[in-house]
């Protein structure tokens, strides 16, 4: 797209031709207050908050529906703009309830933000406020407070344009206008919680998150959803060692601005039923002594020339790093022992928007590392030690119990207590993707990073570290202190990853194999 030179508040910047003035101002580091415009939902022009002064046009114009061309100059800092923007804001507050102390949006509410940055006038609202419906469950996951609604129509446009389900409507006119759903047609599409994200105020709130945490207490880390092989980019928001919610993080190559509801609620295992200490035959043990026990078994097998009696069952749920460490463990330490993916999650729902039937976040990574997804070959002959890494194969497929029983020792490396950890003779705690850096490869072959959000719970350790410690008992070591170290090896030894440099993955990831830059693989 052609670049043009424009002036924002007198400062020259170069931007893409055709951009609207809200986006153009953003590039210049200037925030134009706005409610109805959303980059994923387009222009509607109803809130009138984004008024700016464009050189040569006497009337103020809305920035969302004005577009840059070469030489255009506009200002957001004049007395007139400030006054008129404050006027619009005042109108929005006229019938807005004073709910901030009990409103979940408090702290991430555009009304509050703009009041602080622009308004802060003396209140002269002394007429009665209109009353509308409060605390209405408009769907299984979303609550509505119609009094707080600023009628920006973002939720309406989301359900019209993104999901095509059209549940939300504004009915009635004037200040009787009210956001609502149709009778007997609740807001229950698979993306309904995105309406909560786009809602600029506290009108739509998530039942899951409501009243659980003040948002200003939350910290945020860039992460990925592990609900399916799409790998939607998310913010993982947490406090006090606990994850409270996922919010979609913009990535135009993967999920635009959205994520599905089932995926959004997949954060709970990061908090609950965690395996955070080592368990040996049902009893808590220290991690070093537990590792020593496993290391001893492995060493015996290796030293006695029976390394092929050890098998490694991996999972497309695991990070690329875990899978690579397991592969190296099988190859270098065990001299090519049986390794393969076992616990493939059953296929889920696939749709035209984001959801993929493959419910595993890293099937592609497994495939790119040349690891089979068929547990039969790994388990068939039994042996001395079975290392099961991640997820819950026994929980998902109880029939595997027989095959597990053909091993003398079953060792589980995982992050949650489940059927597999219960069955294992030794269970070792490894960090889930909330507690370490790493990558998943999505169904399109896009390698995407997730960032460490929390300190590891209890005794949990990064799985490559635990595998390295076990390996030490055979007199070998991997020497990876960080994801970067591991990736240096990965890039050298795995052709499929040769073109990808971990350091250059950035926030939006990169397409694997092809060596293309990230932008070249958009759908």
């Amino acid at each position, binding site marked *: 797209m052609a670049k043009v030179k424009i002036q924002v508040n007198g400062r020259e910047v170069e931007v893409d031709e055709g951009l609207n003035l809200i986006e153009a101002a953003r590039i210049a580091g200037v925030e134009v207050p706005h409610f109805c415009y959303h980059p994923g939902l387009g222009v509607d022009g109803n809130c*009138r908050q984004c008024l700016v002064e464009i050189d040569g046009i006497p009337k103020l114009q809305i920035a969302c529906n004005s577009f840059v061309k070469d030489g255009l100059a506009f200002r957001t800092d004049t007395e007139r703009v400030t006054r008129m923007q404050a006027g*619009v804001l005042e*109108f929005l507050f006229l*019938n807005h309830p004073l709910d901030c102390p009990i409103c979940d949006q408090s702290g991430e509410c555009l009304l509050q933000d703009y009041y602080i940055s622009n308004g802060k006038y003396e209140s002269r609202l002394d007429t*009665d406020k209109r009353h509308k419906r409060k605390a209405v469950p408009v769907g299984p996951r979303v609550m509505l407070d119609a009094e707080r609604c600023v009628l920006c129509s973002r939720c309406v446009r989301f359900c019209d344009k993104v999901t095509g389900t059209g549940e939300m409507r*504004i009915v009635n*006119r004037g*200040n009787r206008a009210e956001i609502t759903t149709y009778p007997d047609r609740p807001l229950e599409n698979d993306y309904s919680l995105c309406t909560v994200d786009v809602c600029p105020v506290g009108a739509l709130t998530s039942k899951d998150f409501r009243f659980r945490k003040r948002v200003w207490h939350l910290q945020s880390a860039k992460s990925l959803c592990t609900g399916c092989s799409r790998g939607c980019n998310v913010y993982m928001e947490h406090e006090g060692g606990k994850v409270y919610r996922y919010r979609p993080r913009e990535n135009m190559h993967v999920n635009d601005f959205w994520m599905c509801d089932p995926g959004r609620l997949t954060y709970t295992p990061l908090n609950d039923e965690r395996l955070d200490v080592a368990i040996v035959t049902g009893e808590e043990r220290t991690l070093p002594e537990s590792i020593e026990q496993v290391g001893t078994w492995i060493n015996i097998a290796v030293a006695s020339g029976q390394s092929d009696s050890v098998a490694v069952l991996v999972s497309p749920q695991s990070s690329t790093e875990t899978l690579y460490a397991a592969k190296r463990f099988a190859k270098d330490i065990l001299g090519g022992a049986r390794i393969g993916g076992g616990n493939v999650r059953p296929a889920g729902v696939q749709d035209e928007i984001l959801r993929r039937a493959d419910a595993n976040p890293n099937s592609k990574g497994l495939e790119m590392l040349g690891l089979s997804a068929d547990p039969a070959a790994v388990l068939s002959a039994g042996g001395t030690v079975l290392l099961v890494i991640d997820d819950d194969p026994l929980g998902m497929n109880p029939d595997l119990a027989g095959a597990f029983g053909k091993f003398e020792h079953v060792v589980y490396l995982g992050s949650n207590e489940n059927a597999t950890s219960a069955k294992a003779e030794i269970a070792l705690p490894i960090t889930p993707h909330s507690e370490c850096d790493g990558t998943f490869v999505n169904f399109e072959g896009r390698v995407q990073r997730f960032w460490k959000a929390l300190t590891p719970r209890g005794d949990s350790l990064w799985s490559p570290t635990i595998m390295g410690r076990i390996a030490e008992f055979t007199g070998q070591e991997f020497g990876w202190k960080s994801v970067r170290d591991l990736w240096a090896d990965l890039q050298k030894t795995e052709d499929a990853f040769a073109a990808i440099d971990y350091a250059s993955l950035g926030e939006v990831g990169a397409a694997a194999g092809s060596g293309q830059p990230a932008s070249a693989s958009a759908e």
Partner: protein
Amino acid sequence: MEIKRLTKNFGNPESWTLAAYEKTGGYQMVKKAFAMDPEAIIELVKQSGLRGRGGAGFPTGMKWGFVPKQSDKPKYLCVNADESEPGTFKDRYLLEHDPHALVEGIIISCWAVGIRYAYIYIRGEFGLPYYRIEAAVKEAYEKGYLGSNLNGKGFDLDVTVHRGAGAYICGEETGLIESLEGKKGQPRLKPPFPAVVGVFGCPTVVNNVETIQSIPWIIEHGAEEYRKAGTEKSPGTKLFSVSGHVKRPGVYEIPLGLPCKTLVHDLCGGIIDGKRQKANIVGGSSVPILTGEEADNVDLDYESLAAAGTMLGSGGMIVMDEDTCMVWALAVLLKFYAHESCGQCTPCREGTGWIRNLVYRLEAGDGKREDLDKLLSITGNMMGTTICVLADAAAMPTESFIKKFRAEFEAHVGAGRCPIRGKSAHFLAHAH
């Protein structure tokens, strides 16, 4: 003083029937137009200087010129018969008395602009006008004036009468289009303009009934003759619907530029009981009010009214005598605008309700002195900031009422009641 061009058939026996219309030369101008080059008709309309009679006064020939000549989509005409502006009832008369003249105007206009389909969007509350225009369209089809191959050279035209559901905002041209498409009637963000993206995404002309009904006359008599009535910049005649405290309210077709005084005091017989004219809203409820004295010194044309700080609008004149309470009158107007705001733009949705409530309070005698400046400041924040001009249409009268009749508003505050009507809770009881 009156010049009867569009109203010439008013009063003829059964003037609304095809037979009566044809007797007075009806549909002859269609033949004349078909013999003309469409471009030449647009040029003629430009020459005539005809300006849109729906309120904005936009030059009609120029509007037609904005429609793309080549279009792979069909083009549409929407005749705006939603007439809902308080004080305005001229289109209703045209539809009741001379509906075939509208049909004839539609045929000629569509031929000129290359339009395939026309809609007549008529106000839902109109009963008789609806039956009359519906019957006229039916008769015109039966007689072969509408339908296919009208000129023997493949010109097809279909006309549909569409009844609105009773919303003022569906008179705004893009609100009309949304409503016609079956959606909630609310104005569209512009650009794009209807001439390019209109009804069903196709190029569309929206014109007022009176505008379209002027076309046959212009074809018959030519641009020069048309300009013989009116002023240089406001040529032609205009229908004024006069209501309020005049002796003979009604619809008057007058040459533009006629002194307002002549219309009020001569044609309409002056103020009832010989009282004083306190105020006059000359162009329909959306325009700034004039004092009686100002009204008596202004001419009724676009420029003179603009110079006097008001507008010609739709020509819906509301005359008020000396006993009218201006606070009451403003409360009546604001009740309307707050009710009719479509509610999508923040300043209009909230502003109309806010100023209405403040004026209700003042009317009841419960207002505060500072409410007056507050009102002026609120209206200042409403004007020029919205998708359509309904916000301005509520704000401008409010501003003018307060500026011109401030003492009356202050008297309400001072007395704690209306000095003319006494203590009242009429509006407050209806505040919602």
